[in-house]
Each structure stands twice: as structure tokens, then as C-alpha cells.
């Protein structure tokens, strides 16, 4: 299977000089100060451009961008329920395909993109997402991961990192906050053998935009998992939002990579990682953690990184050969 690789052969990159002027998510929304999620969504929408049809699950981004008079969307947009963004996107795509096939509408190259938070993706929306990826709809699913249910007031999700404080994982005598390890959504998406999966962080905005552009360029389903800092929910300063988005990558907790036709590609190799402790510093959600907890997290983060490197190696046998020969 070379679907994605073939579609991306002549991929024209977005660069600072060739930055699209279009803003499908326009200014004037009601996001919190320093919101990394709306920044990520804006960049993603910009990368798709005027062909965007947006499907939005319930969540922060829906509630900050849709109510009048702060309606920020300048493209066809539908708000669905919490669990069904991928299913509604499936319907939009299939319905348009049927009309195109019958000659009722012309194929204008519109791109169906579903947006959802981590709760709407990893918890309640996982079933719908899995179904849509498996059926092979030509759409892109973007998970904006702020690592908890922020819209309802900071409750844990399966994407909340280990140890983090939320209102339903309160630290205390009997608990140290979130007790489970963050669900690995990009790997779950990749396990569906879809043409394109990527992770991105708004701290590398061009990388983020190009990944989204690639996702909508490849035929079939694509999944992009974007790290989305939430100063309100993480208890950090608004101006620290982008710093966290950079540090989470630099400490290897959130590696940036692509999975193109099943081939893992590291897009940001971190040769000299910072400690997770350094990343935790600016965020009060981790403040209660002791040295033992942090050591445990560091150990697992290191192990996960090694596993990812092994996957890169295993899925790029030619590159390994070349390196040996070189």
C-alpha cells in the first residue's frame, strides 16, 4: 500500500513565505487567554483552506467558536453531539460522493474534516472514529488534545497524563491524581492501517500545518493528533502555553511523527531531551507529584520513546540498510 506516499509525491509545502491568508476560523471567538487549542485549530483550518467542511464535536472548541455573535467559522460547519463527529463526517463524505457520482454536484475537492477534543476522541467518540477509519471514508479527523474535559470544568479523560490533577482525579491521601497512563490515540489510529497518521504541536506551527495539509491531500481516512495546551485546566500562565507545547516534545512525552502507509517517520528527533520534571514545572496540575512519581514517569516516557524508535527502524528497513552501507 502506497496510497499516501503516491498522493504526496508532489506535495507543495506551506512555508512562512507561502502562508495562506485565509482564516476559516476567524478572530473574535471566546476562547480563554493563552488557549493552545484554538491556535492549533486555527492553524489546521488555515492549512486546509477554502475547501474546508468542518464537523465539530461538542467541546471547548465548539462552545468558544460557534455561539452568536462570536461565531468564528467562515466555512460550512456542523456541530454534532459529543460522540459522533467521525460518524457525521462519514455521512457528509458519503452523501457528497453519492451526489458527485450521480452528477448532481461537481467534485469541487471539498475536504471533510472532523474536529474533536481528547474526550470526544479517546473516550466517547472512539467507537465512531474506529468505524469511520475502518470503512475508509475520505476524510480527516483532527483530535485537539488538551488532556481533560475542560469544557465541563477539568475532568480527567483517558488522554489525561499519569499523575495529573483534575476534578475527578483529585490528589490526596488515597490518590495521586490520574492513575492511568495516557491512551495512545495516534497508535490506535495507526492500527487501523489508514494511509496517514500524524502528531503535531502548535509550537511547530509550519510542521502542524503541513501535516494537516498532507492529511487532507491523501485519499482515504487520515488522523492528526494535536497537542493543545490549556492554561485554564493545567493551571499554568497563559503566556506559558506555547512553552509547554514545545517542552512536551523536547522531553519526549509527545513525540512528533508521521505514519505514512504504515511507515513510521520521526519528524522531530530529540537528541538531547529535557527532563519531564522541567516540562512539569510551569503547570500546577503536576505540582503534588513527588520525586518517585516523576522518576516513574521519566522511565515510562523513555521506554515509550525507545519503542517508537524501534517502530521507525522496523518500518523503514531500506533506510536502515542505507545507513549501514553509508
Amino acid at each position: 500500500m502506497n496510497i499516501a506516499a503516491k498522493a504526496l509525491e508532489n506535495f507543495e509545502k506551506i512555508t512562512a513565505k507561502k502562508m495562506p491568508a485565509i482564516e476559516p476560523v476567524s478572530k473574535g471567538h471566546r476562547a480563554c487567554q493563552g488557549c493552545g487549542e484554538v491556535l492549533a485549530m486555527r492553524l489546521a483550518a488555515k492549512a486546509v483552506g477554502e475547501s474546508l467542511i468542518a464537523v465539530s464535536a461538542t467541546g471547548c472548541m465548539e462552545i468558544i467558536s460557534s455561539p452568536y455573535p462570536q461565531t468564528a467559522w467562515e466555512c460550512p460547519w456542523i456541530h454534532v453531539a459529543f460522540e459522533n463527529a467521525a460518524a457525521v463526517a462519514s455521512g457528509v463524505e458519503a452523501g457528497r460522493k453519492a451526489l458527485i457520482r450521480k452528477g448532481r454536484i461537481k467534485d469541487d475537492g471539498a475536504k471533510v474534516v472532523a474536529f474533536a477534543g481528547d474526550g470526544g476522541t479517546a473516550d466517547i467518540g472512539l467507537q465512531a472514529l474506529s468505524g469511520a477509519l475502518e470503512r475508509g471514508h475520505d476524510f480527516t479527523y483532527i483530535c485537539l488534545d488538551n488532556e481533560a474535559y475542560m469544557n465541563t470544568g477539568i475532568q480527567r479523560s483517558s488522554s489525561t497524563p499519569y499523575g495529573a490533577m483534575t476534578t475527578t482525579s483529585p490528589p490526596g491521601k488515597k490518590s495521586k491524581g490520574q492513575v492511568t497512563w495516557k491512551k495512545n490515540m495516534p497508535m490506535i489510529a495507526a492500527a487501523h492501517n489508514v494511509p496517514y497518521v500524524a502528531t503535531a504541536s502548535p509550537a511547530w506551527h509550519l510542521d502542524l500545518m503541513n501535516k494537516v495539509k498532507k492529511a487532507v491531500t491523501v485519499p482515504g481516512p487520515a488522523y492528526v493528533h494535536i497537542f493543545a495546551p490549556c492554561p485554564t485546566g493545567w493551571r499554568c500562565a497563559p503566556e506559558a502555553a506555547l512553552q509547554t507545547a514545545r517542552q512536551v516534545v523536547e522531553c519526549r512525552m509527545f513525540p512528533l511523527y508521521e505514519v505514512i502507509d504504515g511507515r513510521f517517520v520521526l519528524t522531530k528527533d530529540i537528541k538531547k531531551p529535557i527532563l519531564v520534571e522541567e516540562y512539569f514545572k510551569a503547570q500546577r496540575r503536576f505540582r503534588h507529584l513527588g520525586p518517585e512519581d516523576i522518576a516513574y514517569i521519566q522511565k515510562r516516557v523513555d521506554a515509550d520513546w525507545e519503542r517508537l524508535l524501534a517502530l521507525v527502524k522496523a518500518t523503514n528497513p531500506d533506510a536502515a540498510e542505507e545507513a549501514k552501507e553509508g
Partner: protein
Amino acid sequence: MSKAVLTGTHFMNGDEACCEGALAAGCRFFAGYPITPATEVAECMSRRLPQVGGVFIQMEDEIASMAAILGGSWGGVKSMTSTSGPGFSLMMENIGLGVCTETPCVVCNVQRAGPSTGLPTLVGQGDMMQARWGSHGVYEIIAVAPSSPQEMFDFTIKAFNLSERFRVPVMIMADEVVGHMNERVVIPSPEAIHLVERAKPSVPPEQYLPYQAGPEGVPFMANYGDGYHMHVTGLTHDERGYPVMEVWAQEQMTQRIVGKIKNNLEHILDYDLVCMDDAEVAVVAYGISARSARGAVLAAREQGIKVGLVKLNVAWPFPEDFIRDLSGRVKAMIMPEINLGQMVLELERLSQGRCPVSLVSHPGGGIITPGRILAAVRESLKEAA
């Protein structure tokens, strides 16, 4: 002092009072999912349950939450979930499973305005018919309707008692205003709280029929691990619990699960009468609207208007005989509710034209003011004269 029962006088909101009521009733398992305006019940449970040796699990959605409490109940623990409109809709299939398998459990619905996502932060009473009829098939259900944080505490205990006694999911049909309102809540001492526990089998395992009618038509319930052979299914089943795809089994099962409610109304129905002795007009109300109605009735009495309040503490089953009889004694009945007409249909059905029935409605997003109810009372008396 018991950690589970915080005896004393508190100032808390309805959602927190619901959580404390559940703990006082012996609930030790909560499975839930964040949703406005019910999130505080889950948040409170996540803090409080570990303190009393219970378990809080945040599930991946409301389907799983409802399913988990059925499992928890069969594990032998009093179990509960809480939600609001969209989540309540997702729970419906598993509520039916709870009815069919006769699983004691409690579902708190802090109602908001719908349909769909609606007004998440604002009040509604639009899920009342869904509470009664939302799951498919033939069944009866019990729903309580608290109108204050104190009643959130009291009625949550009541909900657990009813669900343990009649082995049916019991709904707490609260609403956003009751859930978010902060008021005085008096929590009594543990000894003063009457608790009902599910009746357990005393026969040896080989004689046990898990779905044979016991006292009040309710079978004795063994928990998993008690040593009894348990076969629990959502398929139509016989007294042994085995699926039987026959009409006689469907007849036997449904008649019993409906009958255990219908034949025990005197133990289930609960309504308060305010100024009803000489009332010419009856305002029938539940939840937050009952508080507005109370204000309207008291104000009307000061003006010499003979009006009374029937406050429904239990909304389902509906007090059919009482309302039928009442409709022959009053000049009019009025139902204020934050929807465009749901429980009022019951008044219309039962009055059968014996007296006019009117609705004071609100589409959701705000409460019905006492003034509007008072105006409706005046109007109904004018029409009757």
C-alpha cells in the same frame, strides 16, 4: 462521626446533596461521565467515595456508566450514576436492561433544556416522559422529583430504598436549578436514616429460583459470589433466569415486572398536599416548578383565592387514582412545567373532561415564576365562573 454520613447542618448545592444522600444510603460505587449540570455529583463522588472505602470510576461515556452500575449492583454494591439530557438518552438501552434483569440502581438526571445539546447550563424539565418511556418495550419505572437541595439529599436516599425494595432502576429527576442551587441541607444522624436493603435468598442454592416472585412480587436477589447459580439476561427469561423465546414467558415476565410496581402503589406513591382541603383549583407540580407553585399558592391564599398545591415527590408512577378523584372535586387543574407539555398529559388523561386542565409552560432556560402560575389560577377561576 461517620465519614459517610456528615451529620449536621450544611450549606451545599443540590448536586453535592445528591452525592451525600447516596453515601448516606450506602452507595459505594459510582460510575459516571462529565456533563453539565450534573458534573458536580461525579466530582463530589470522586472526592468522597475513596474516603469511605467506595469506588469511583469515570467511564468513557454514559452508555458505559449505566452498564457499569448494573454490574456493580450485581456485584452486591449499591450503585449509582448521574447525568443530564444527552447522557440520559445514551443510557436508555441499559436502563431497559436494568428493568429486565431487575437490577437495583439509581440514575440521577439533572435536567437541562433540550433537545440535543440544547442549553447545557440552563434549566429544563423536558425529560419527564423519557424517564417513563425512554427505553423500548413493556415496563414500569420509578422516578422521584426533588425540588430543593434538601430533597436532593432526602430523595436520593428514598431512590435507593425504592430501588432495593422493588429491584428496578430509580430515576432522580432533578433539574439544573435544583442541582446548582445552594441551600441549607440538614443531614440527620445515621440512626435516624431509614435504609432498605435488597432481600436475599435464604433457601439452599439448589432450590433458588432467581426470578420467582417473592414478597410484593419482587424476587430474592443473590449477588455474584454469594454461592447461588446466577444466570442474568436481557432476553425474556423464566423463573430460573434462562432465556425462553415463548409468548408465555414474555407474558409471565412482563406482567410481574409491571405488577411489582402497579400492585405496590401505596408503598411508592408520594405527594404533598398544600392548602388542598378546600381548594377549588389544584396546581399539580414537581421539581423546581413545585417551588414556584408553592409561592403562587401561598400568595393566592393571602388574597383569599381557594387554591392548593399537589406536589409530586414521586413523579412515576403517577398518582392516577388520586388525580382521577381530584378532577371531580376541583374546578380546574393547572400544571406548571419547564417543557411544552409532558406531565400535563397525565392530568388530561385522568381528568377525562371532569375539570379543565391547563398548562403553564416554559420551553427551557428559565424557571416559571409564581406570578405566571397565579395568573393562570385567576384565569381558570374566571373561566369556571
